[in-house]
Structure formats: C-alpha cells, structure tokens
C-alpha cells in the first residue's frame, strides 16, 4: 500500500459477537488509532440494508452497517476478510458502495485463502514500519484472548439457563470482557480467565436430571453474531436448554493452519466428519455443518438447530445431507433462515414447537 506520509489512519472492522476484543488486540500492534463501531443495533441493520443489494446474504448488510457507523465516527481504513463463498466478494462490493456514498477511506481486504501466516503478513503490510515480530506477537495474544472468550462463552451457553438467580452469569461475563479487553500480556489474560471461570463456577446452578441438550450448527456469521440470530441462544437458555456450539473463530484458524502447504487441508478435515453424508466439499461452512450435525446425532443429543442467512448457498447445499442424518439417526433438526427483518415472532413459534417436541419425546422415552 502506498500512501502519503501525513495521513493519520484510523482503522475499523465489522463486529462479530464479542470478537472485537480480539481484533482490537491484534490491530493495536500497527500503532494506528482504532475505531470500534458501536454495538450492532436496529440502526446498524437499517443502514446496512438500505445501501446493500436487496438479495445479498444478511452478514453483508450487517458489515456494511458497521462500516457506515464507523466511518461516521471518523474511521478511514476499513478491513474485511474473505472466504470460500459469496463472502469472498464482500470486500469489493462494500468498497464500491461506500465510495458511491461519498466516503473518503481506504479499504483493505485479506486473501480469500487464509492461513495464520498470510493473515499476519497481510496485516503487516498496512504499516510495514512496524517490526514484524510485534505483529506476530499481537496476533498470538489476540488468538489467545479469542480462546479465553470462547471458553467463557462456552461455559455460559451450557449453564446460563439454569441459574438459581437469573442474570448473575451475564453480569460477571460483562466484567470479564471489559477486563480482558484491558489485558496486555498472556499472563494477565490467562489469570483473568482463570479467575472469572472460578467465579462463574461458584454461581449456584440447578440443572435438572433430564435436561435437553441441543446443538447449534450453520453459517459462521449468524452463529457467532447473536443480534443476527435474534439471540437464539438466549431464547433456548430461557427455556432451560443446554446449548452446544462448535463454530469459533480460533477453531476456524486452527483448521486453516496448513492451508497452502497441504492442498485442501481445511476442507478435508471438515469432510472427514461429514462422511458418509457428503462426498465432496459443498463450499463455505456447509461441510462443517454436516460434520457437526453428524457428530451431534451420534453423541445422542436431543436435536440440532441449523441456522443460515436467507439464500446462503453452502448451507442450502448442506440441508439435504442434514435431512439424511435426521432420517438415519431419527434426529430432529430444524432449519431457520435469517434476513434483515427484526421481528422474532416466527422464530420463537418454531423454536417453541421444537422445544415442546423434544420435551414430549424425552418424557416418552423416560417412561
């Protein structure tokens, strides 16, 4: 990237769950000012869908909304990643849309075929004056913080529905996040996570013997961003369901470590679990959804929820394979699509019915 010396960069990136903490930690190494867009709200999605192509998948609209809100707060360098589906074209399209809106900014997109090494390399290019080892170190710390967040979130998902006094876990979790955001070193982050996991564990939990265990699989973004799936995990928790989820950002990075060295490494890893229901890769995260659902069914979970943005091709591809899993293991799966509408009634009706069904099933087998 060529640029004038005098220009002061203010970097921004889209939200995804609580990962802004991770991103921030990483980009801090670049010695640039970082603008974190305001938390996703109705306004974000309204802005995003107003300027997006109508039929584009919904993460595009959220991302665009985040960008607009960040630009309005003074950001002038936007980051976007890419992947093996329409996501690979997000960056180009978003750049054009924002330019047409008259914003003055630079846009930086990572390669579609990612692995940790080229991510670090790409980011280093933004400010090559910074020594490489600093970017590397920041990446590692960011990765570690990502793991910490995921650990805590996992605990929350499995337990938040069963608190004796509602709201305690979430309150502590918010403290944890704000402190983790401040942590500067590995030791700090590790100790913090240890401390808060202990606090979480000491919060009284009352789990029934015959509890329902449900897995959430599906498209990366809508799984990770609670606003985009109408807080599906919270809703399930409020019904007293133990929610399991596997998709994480660091998991994605782990899978991609050998990308580029071993051809199709990432894909093959996913495919292994999806057999015999899939023979070939179906793009994006579809293969992984099938693999995870397969695992859930084998492990004797009560059911799975498959979520996707409306029109997500890889996940639409995954559905016939998922239906076969359903049939073979007698394993209920429901399918939900999300778009920019903000009413959650339809989703609640379907989830409630799903919950009733699982409960009836469980009670019947108990007898």
């Amino acid at each position, binding site marked *: 990237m060529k640029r004038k010396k005098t220009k002061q960069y203010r970097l921004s990136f889209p939200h995804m769950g609580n990962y802004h903490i991770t991103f921030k930690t990483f980009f801090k190494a670049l010695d640039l000012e970082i603008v974190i867009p305001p938390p996703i*709200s109705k306004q974000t999605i309204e802005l995003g869908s107003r300027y997006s192509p109508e039929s584009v998948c919904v993460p595009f609209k959220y991302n665009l909304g985040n960008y607009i809100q960040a630009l309005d707060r003074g950001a002038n360098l936007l980051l976007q990643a890419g992947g093996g589906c329409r996501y690979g074209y997000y960056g180009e399209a978003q750049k054009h849309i924002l330019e047409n809106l008259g914003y003055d900014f630079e846009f930086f997109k990572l390669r579609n075929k990612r692995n940790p090494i080229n991510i670090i390399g790409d980011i280093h290019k933004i400010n090559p004056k910074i020594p490489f080892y600093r970017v590397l170190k920041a990446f590692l710390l960011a990765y570690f913080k990502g793991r910490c967040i995921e650990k805590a979130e996992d605990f929350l998902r499995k337990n938040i529905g069963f608190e004796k006094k509602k709201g305690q876990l979430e309150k502590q979790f918010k403290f944890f996040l704000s402190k983790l955001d401040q942590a500067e070193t590995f030791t700090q982050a590790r100790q913090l996570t240890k401390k808060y996991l202990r606090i979480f564990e000491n919060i009284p939990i009352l789990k029934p013997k015959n509890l329902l265990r449900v897995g959430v699989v599906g498209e990366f973004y809508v799984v990770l961003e609670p606003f985009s799936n109408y807080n599906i995990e919270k809703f399930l928790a409020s019904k007293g369901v133990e929610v399991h989820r596997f998709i994480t950002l660091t998991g994605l990075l782990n899978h991609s470590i050998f990308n580029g060295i071993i051809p199709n490494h990432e894909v093959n890893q996913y495919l292994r679990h999806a057999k015999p229901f899939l023979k070939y890769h179906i793009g994006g995260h579809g293969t992984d959804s099938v693999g995870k659902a397969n695992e859930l069914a084998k492990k004797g979970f009560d059911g799975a929820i498959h979520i996707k943005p409306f029109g997500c091709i890889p996940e639409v591809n995954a559905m*016939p394979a998922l239906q076969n899993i359903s049939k073979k293991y007698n394993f209920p799966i429901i399918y939900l699509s999300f778009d920019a509408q903000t009413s959650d009634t339809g989703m609640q*009706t379907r989830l*409630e019915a799903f919950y*009733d069904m699982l409960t009836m099933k469980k009670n019947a087998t108990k007898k």
Partner: protein
Amino acid sequence: MPQKNKQYYSLGVDIGSISTKAVVIDQNKKILARAYLWTQGDPIQAMKNVLKTVREQLQERPGRITWVGATGSARNLIGSILQAEIVKNEITAHAIGALTLYPKIRTVLEIGGQDSKIIIIDKGIVADYAMNTLCAAGTGSFLTSQSKRLEINIKDFGSLALKSKNPAKIAGRCTVFAESDLVHKAQMGYPKHDIIAGLCNAVVDNYLNNVGKGKKILAPIIFQGGVSKNIGVVKAFEKSLNSQIIVDKNGHLMGAFGIAVIAQEQGTKKLFDFSIQDVEFRTQGFECKGCPNNCEIICVLKNHKFLDGWNNRCEVGMAKAKEHFDK
C-alpha cells in the same frame, strides 16, 4: 350455591391471521361450543366476538370455564387479555388436538390462512415437524384471493374442482407465478373448473415440495386447518399421496381444541369471567429511545392501564413503557 357434580370446562382460543377459532370442551374432551369467525385484522374484537358466540352456546350448560389456553399468531396479545395460563404455539396445539381425537395418527397435514405445517408422529408423540417459511404460497389466503379473481364463492371451490377431468397445469412454486399462469390459462379458454382443479393441485404440489420436503409421510394421515374444508384439495392430496386422508368435521378448529386440551391437562383451575367482553382493550406502540435499538414496544392497555407489552430487548424498555402509560 355450590353444586355437587359441578362440571369444569376448558376454553381454547386460536387467533390466526385470517380466522379466529374458539372451542369449549368438558372434562371428557367433548366439544360443547365452537366458534369460527374472521379475524379481519382486529384480533381483540375477533376474540370478543367468538367469546360472545361461545357464551350463547353455553347458556344451557351447568359447568363453568376454569381453564383457558391461547394459541395462534396473536396468542401473546389474547393470552394476556384472557389471562390464559397456557399460551402455546400453534404447532404443538395442532399436534395435541389431532392426537387426542386420533391417537393412531402418523402424519398431520395442516394448511391455514397464512401458514402451513406438517407434523410427523411416531408412537403417539411428535417426532418431527416443519412449517412454511417466508412465503404464503399455497395457503388459504392464496386460494381465497384466486377465488375472488375468478368470482367464485370459496365455499363452492372444492366441489367445482371435483367436476374437472383435465386439471390445468398451474405452477405452484410462487404465488406470483401461479397467478400469472392462472390468468394465462383463463385467457386461453380453459373452463373454470379445470383451472380451479389446477389450483388445488398446485397447492398440494407446493406443500409437498416445500413443507413436506424430506419428510416421510406415512398413513394414517389427517388433514386439518381451514383449507381441509376444501374437498378439491383433499382429493388432490389423496391422489398425490396415494392414500386415504382423514378430515375431521372439526378440522378447522383443531388448534383451538388442542390448546383447550393442553390447558386442561397442564393448567391449574382458575375461574374464567365472560365479563371480559365488556372491558375496553387497546394496543399502542411505545418507542423506548433508550439505546440505538429503539425498540418499539407494543403495549396492551386495559381500561387505559398498562397490562402487558412485547418486543422489548431488555427490561429497561418495559419499565419505561409501564411508567409512560400508568402516569
């Protein structure tokens, strides 16, 4: 004066987008009173109307209503107005309704005004279900609008369809396509009953390809919901599935019946007062403005006092709304 053999009844109300249904059953699950009226976009008035009808039918009966259940898309609103103890989704209600009357059933097909669902039952419990997403093609309201276009009374729709020997082929995938297909066929000179039979087939094809996709449809099959009253669609289903289809004479009331059964089995007794008919209920939106989400909370007011609200993302909004209306 307390009677010795006092009977207790259960009221189930199903407020759909198009029609509102109410059923009162006794402890033997026998239907004592029923009502079926159009919602006409005003669920509160529709609820009052069905209550009135039901009350008239109950006048001679000695028992009192002690359980109330609400279902359908306006279940939260009506549930809180009626102070119903059981407020449940229509999928569960339909399944329980069908299972109570026909315990051996394996598949429930249901087509209502705006939605359609399939419920697969295995050994008397719900094993799987699906509901149409996003699009109302092939539901009751589609048939109603097309019958208006052809100027046919919706009640004659089914019997007319049976007259056809060569049903016109009409694309059922999408309402817009179906409609242009229909116009095209009509202008080409197809007789009306062939077009109508084609529409019935289109509804069935759409249903089986959409909602029923990937589901194993096993006999005995029951078909319920408003569209089950349309004999043309029933016959089209029988032909397509190659199996006999049960249609209960109360098939259109099954959701209300189901929720009445659930209320009776799961709820605790609480006397229901019909005077609720005369109370004024009003709904009003309230914008929270507490954060950028700007939740628009829908509040229902009983005699100008805040009763309940929905659509908030956090507790702050609800407290604000309550304060706003109660002051």
